[in-house]
């Protein structure tokens, strides 16, 4: 079993769908089956690899430090599992949701390419590979956002995403070129050892460029402007992927490069992450409040959650830089575990919310919250599952979102005498309040208002199944809390080295 397999299956699947489509036109079910089975194969391969981490794959005759390499450690595997997991559910969900669309072979092929890109980012052993898969991910997601190109909104959103993301990619690439200039290699483990131990201005320059560049995809304010438009315009399964996992790929790449290449002990980027994290968190949360479009509502909440994850990373980087390692290690690993746990919670929760809101939109044809009031009374399964997701991300105990926010908050709270940490705690608490407020508010609107007068049918089974599975996953995360925390804290170990 090689590391190539999980990556190869979705790529083969994408090619297979296109190939089959020339023989069997417009067979949504067939394409969907190919997509789901290739992703499932990929998941199985990943799970098989999971016991043997870290694993690497190189091409014969093209060896590092010059050649390309795939490399998967526990952090990458954690992300890869999330990517494929949400990918499978989104693909399965698409079968009914996209049933009335044309060009489904392109849709499923793009979906598989998107997941393949995500997997490649998680499994990249050098910055070149990372960038290639990054672009694969980005380009397929532009196309998916604009998939319903007969309407203006998706086209505009897709174009905006394209421009913003390209600017970001170029910036990040520019930053990587600096790294190459400093060390003469793009290979991550080589970079780690070759980077000078003392911070240099060129190093900082590279760091900022990479942070800003990947910041577009991870939707850090002020680079986030594509996100409020793209997921709402995209079909719901694509929104779930974008908001649930694509932006996490940005966070992953940022954390990976910052924590391993620019070590927090050498480069003082904690403040940077804290400032941008706090701004992102606050702006995201505040802008949720005026939204009437349920998907924009969720999109802004995604921005806020990325902000929280970034803030947690900032706290970790800050304590690792400012305090001696023995004090800092425990707090930093707490913060990073919290961040990883929140990545998990948000991926599952936001995936659930976008898919279940897709059910509502599919049945009612509207995204307006005012028109969706009391809808859960007509659609108890979708509405019930959605409530679980809303309460989860609202941080209502005992669901997982509460625990991950608590873990993140405990880290700076352990150093309250440090004014910066105290400010972090205050910002987190205030924002948790906002998040709890608007999610409970949304739950109340959707669930407890009087049911709409017109007859509305519950979503079909194949759409409900992924939604209910995700809701069960939310509950399962709560019930398996000790082992989940063990899992995430082992996942972030590569960042702590």
């Amino acid at each position, binding site marked *: 079993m090689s590391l190539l397999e999980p990556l190869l299956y979705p790529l083969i699947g994408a090619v297979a769908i296109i190939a089959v489509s020339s023989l069997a036109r417009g067979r949504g079910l067939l394409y969907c089956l190919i997509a789901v089975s290739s992703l499932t194969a990929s998941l199985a391969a990943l799970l098989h690899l999971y016991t043997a981490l870290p694993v690497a794959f190189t091409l014969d005759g093209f060896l590092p430090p010059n050649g390309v390499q795939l490399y998967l450690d526990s952090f990458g595997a954690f992300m890869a599992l999330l990517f494929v997991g949400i990918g499978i559910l989104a693909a399965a969900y698409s079968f009914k949701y996209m049933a009335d669309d044309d060009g489904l072979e392109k849709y499923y092929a793009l979906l598989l390419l998107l997941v393949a890109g995500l997997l490649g980012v998680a499994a990249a052993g050098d910055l070149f590979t990372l960038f290639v898969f990054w672009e694969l991910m980005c380009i397929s997601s532009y196309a998916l956002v604009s998939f319903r190109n007969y309407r203006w909104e998706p086209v505009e959103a897709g174009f905006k995403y394209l421009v913003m993301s390209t600017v*970001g990619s170029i910036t990040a690439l520019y930053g990587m070129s600096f790294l190459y200039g400093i060390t003469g290699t793009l290979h991550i483990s080589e970079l780690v050892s070759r980077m000078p131990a003392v911070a240099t201005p060129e190093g900082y320059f590279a760091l900022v460029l990479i942070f800003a560049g990947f910041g577009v995809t991870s939707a850090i304010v002020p680079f986030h402007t594509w996100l409020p438009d793209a997921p709402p315009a995209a079909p719901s399964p694509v929104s779930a992927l974008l908001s649930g996992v694509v932006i996490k790929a940005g966070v992953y790449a940022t954390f990976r490069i910052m924590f391993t290449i620019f070590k927090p002990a050498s480069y003082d980027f904690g403040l940077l992450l804290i400032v941008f994290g706090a701004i992102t968190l606050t702006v995201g949360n505040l*802008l949720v409040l005026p939204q009437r479009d349920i998907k924009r509502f969720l999109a802004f909440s995604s921005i806020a959650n990325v902000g929280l994850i970034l803030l947690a990373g900032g706290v970790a980087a800050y304590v690792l830089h400012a305090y001696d390692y023995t004090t800092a290690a425990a707090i930093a690993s707490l913060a990073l575990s919290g961040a990883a746990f929140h990545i998990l919670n948000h991926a599952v929760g936001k995936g659930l919310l976008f898919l279940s809101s897709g059910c509502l939109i599919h049945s009612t044809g509207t995204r307006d919250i005012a028109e969706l009031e009391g809808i859960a009374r007509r659609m108890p399964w979708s509405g019930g599952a959605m409530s679980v997701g809303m309460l989860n991300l609202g941080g209502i105990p005992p669901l997982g979102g509460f625990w991950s926010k608590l873990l993140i908050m405990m880290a700076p709270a352990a150093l309250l005498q440090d004014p910066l940490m105290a400010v972090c705690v205050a910002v987190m608490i205030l924002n948790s309040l906002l998040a709890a407020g608007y999610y409970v508010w949304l739950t109340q609107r959707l669930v407890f208002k009087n049911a709409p007068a017109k007859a509305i049918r519950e979503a079909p089974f194949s759409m409900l199944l992924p939604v209910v599975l995700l809701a069960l996953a939310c509950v399962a995360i709560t019930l398996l809390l000790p082992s989940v925390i063990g899992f995430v804290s082992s996942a972030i170990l590569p960042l702590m080295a």
Partner: protein
Amino acid sequence: MVDVTYSALLPAVLCWTIPVAGAFATLGLSKVGARARDYGAVLTSILAAISAASLLPLLPSEGLPIDIRFDWVTLPFSEMPLSIGAGFLIDPLSIILCNVVSVIGSLIMVYSLKYMEGDPSLTRYWFFMNLFLGNMLLLVLSDNFVQMLFGWEGVGVCSYALIGFWHSDSKEDWLKCWVGEGKESCPPSHSGMKAFIMTRFGDVLMLMGVFLLIVALGTANFLELQNGAASVAGPYKFLLLPAALLIFGGAVGKSAQLPLMEWLPDAMTGPTPVSALIHAATMVKAGVYLVARVFPIFYIALVADPALITFFQVVAWVGALTAFVAATQATVSTELKKVLAYSTVSQIGYMMLGMGVAGTVAEFYIGYAGGVMHLMSHAVFKAALFLSAGAVIHAVNSRFMYHMGGLGKKMPLTYVAMLASSLSLMGMPVFFSGFWSKDMVLESALLAGQYPLLMLGLLTVSVTCFYTVRMLGLVFHGKPSEHQAAEAAAGHLHLGDPSPKMTVPYQILAAATVAMGVTGYFQREWLVKLFAGYYSGIFALGHIEISEGLMPQLFTAALSTLFLLAGAVPAYLIYFRGRTPPQSGLLSSIRNLLFRRYYLNALYYALFVNPTMWLAERLYSAMEVGFFDRLNAGIAAAARSASSKLRKSHAGDLNYNVLAFAVGLALLMLIILVVVIW
């Protein structure tokens, strides 16, 4: 010796699991159909009665007690290794009690079929009725305190839900489902709450008592407690008396004895079958059962700590005083069910009296058997009284006795049933069960030489007879009230005996009380032998020579008959013959005192309820409205204004978006410059 096998003991488990399972089955059956649900619920209670009855053959057995035990919890880290088992104790007391509960309970369930017909919330009704029965049976059959508390609290919860069953507090039906008049009237939801909270006071005391007892004796199992009581270790000996008194606190709450009796008269807001169930078969009997259950423990412990005699004296005095006080209140009540409620409190006082007196003498078996026998006979005649009262209230659409009158001719079957059970309540000699059981309690007081208690008991007989005759006179004799005429004019009145589904249960019960009266003497002898024989083994006394003469019995009978007439005759003259009662200022102020319940109820409201509510309202307006609401509104307003300002920056123009990217990058550079230079 009965062949005791597993299959013979299975009913002890089934007895309470069937109603509990039935309660949950009701929820499912309600989806099948209304008839399936109703008859299913009744069927489960009948099955419970059958399994209880199948324990009866064990009764005279020498093999008792049987304790079926399972391991449950072992408390770690405690100084004493305390292992709490789960289990079922089968002894004469639990067999008798579970039969009383389930047999009368199932008759009440049959009656409910018709009485509650058409109620929109029947699923809830059946659910809680069966759960109530199941919890009561669990309580009675448990072999240790901890498990018993589950049943105990379950009974409490179900009583809350059933007393407040008509929780919408409909003003239209206030003649039927409220309780009290004027300032002291209260709706069902209030009564349910009141019952729950007042019994909770007793429960807390009891819990403390149970803890003390566990500390003193190191176990929660009843049989082990009995065994350990004789040789309780020195340092913990002083805990026994407080433990006993605190546990009695639980009984006082549940059985509505002084000073925690105030919840029970108000509990009449529940549907009549609920009242019957609470008063006749379950709930209030739990307190008597508890005293009977701990009786052997403390009776044995008397050897180790003679101070425990105080416990038995307290039980006896509380019982006697409650019997008298509650009976006097019944004499002025205007509501039919409330008369019966006060009467229940009063009769339970007798049972407590019997139990208490029994503990002070060597011939404990007269008082103990008397208490248990009165429990049985009261359960039967009070159930009959309540069910027939329900029929009356159903017919005239009012709970007030001044809305009734002259019903004897129109509802003959109901009248006969009520008459028979009333005579039993009064203790009419020889043919009615109440006579035998009440006299046995009085006799035990006589034998113990407790003359003040005997006197109180006898006075209570007079008062009981007075209010019972008054009740019969007001309801069934005299002229029909104007209310009836008004109801008839409005077409709401359906005077007459109800359908057999309702009459048959209370006729069976009325017939049973007569049958128990006719066989009273043998029943008495049987119970005395049963308990004397059973406890002689437990108390390690060897064979007890049952010493009971005929003389005390005859003497008590003569005395009680005398007091019976002293109470019944004036009432007969006033309420049947229409004589004008004597008028005087003293009498009317006594009447007022009684009507206001000795101001005890008002006192509780003034001492506990009103200050608490006052404080809560102050806290609400100061903290909730004054501080938290404003804080919340402030946070919300701040967030809203910040978001509306921020929103202007998100116009969605791509040019500005790219510009924002550039600005962000510049900002980043700036931060880095600061960091690098600094």
